């Protein structure tokens, strides 16, 4: 009986819009149960309608947030995978070449060179190689030039040949 009196008092406050959200929840919960009081029975459909409708929204929101949280989690993982990959790469290079942080870095013919002068001499050697190659190239172009001269000398003969065929 006490419960019914409490609900009736809450109902009065509800209809005067004086109840808090918590108290309104108590009312909705009460009307979900098997109400026997004749006077209170009249309000049952209204409160049940409110509860049903609120449940529908909550259900939809729950579906929505679960979809969202999984997609967020996935993108979060991807973001951290790239950071982890970069960190692993940095660590790897450090482990492979630990003591060469500040010195001259030069690799010639697959040999690591630390001495500056040795590097310069090796570079000179390479440059002279290239120079000699350029010299050979020059020689071959000179030969081509002489071939060109022969072509020039032949051109009057070719024009004569043309003239002869036209006359035919």
């Amino acid at each position, binding site marked *: 009986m006490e419960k019914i009196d409490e609900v009736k008092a809450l109902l009065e406050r*509800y*209809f*005067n*819009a*004086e109840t808090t*959200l918590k108290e*309104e929840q108590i009312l909705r919960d009460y009307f979900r149960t098997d109400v026997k009081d004749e006077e209170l*029975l*009249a*309000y049952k*459909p*209204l409160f*049940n*309608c*409110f509860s*049903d*409708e*609120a449940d*529908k*929204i909550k259900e*939809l*929101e729950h579906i*929505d*947030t679960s979809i*969202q949280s999984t997609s967020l989690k996935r993108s979060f993982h991807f973001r951290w995978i790239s950071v982890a990959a970069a960190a692993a790469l940095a660590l790897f290079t450090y482990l492979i070449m630990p003591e060469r942080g500040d010195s001259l870095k030069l690799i010639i013919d697959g040999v690591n060179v630390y001495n500056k002068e040795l590097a310069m001499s090796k570079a000179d050697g390479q440059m002279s190689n290239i120079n000699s190659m350029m010299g050979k190239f020059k020689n071959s172009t000179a030969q081509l030039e002489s071939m060109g001269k022969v072509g020039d000398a032949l051109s009057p003969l070719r024009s004569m040949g043309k003239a002869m065929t036209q006359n035919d």
Partner: protein
Amino acid sequence: MTPQEFNIVVSKLRPRLINFASGFVKDGASTADDMVQEAIIKLWKSSELQEIRNPEALTMHILKNVCLDYLKLKKNNMDSLNPNFHIYTDNDPLVAVEHKDELCSINSYLSILPHDQMIAVRLRDIMGYEMDEIAKILGTSEGNVRTLLSRARQRLREKLLANGKDRRS
């Protein structure tokens, strides 16, 4: 607000928005969807202009205006054009059948209320907003919201008690 943040906010709100809009329309969920879409577009436009402090209240406020516009438009267009338009009254047989069957349709309860009262009841009793949030959405004071709400609930009470008597007699 970046488009991604905006999408997250909007998708979180969407079920509530759809529910709210569907309280205004009788011709199916697609119209409610359209109204929500219109409100979201308006929200996006306003988010370009200013930083939104309370996106939920602003969205509900915009949607409320969209819904009221829809009702006005519908009244202007449909009532005069449709000769079969029918105003449902308490004596209507269809309504009587609905009540007899205790068809649980929140719209049948709320349809007897003026729009502002109906909105107040929806926001409070279904969506569970606090008084100050409802005041923000409706653009009015908390005291005014309480008045709206108590008037609406009293009317619902009268209706329920009258139905109860009918059923018993």
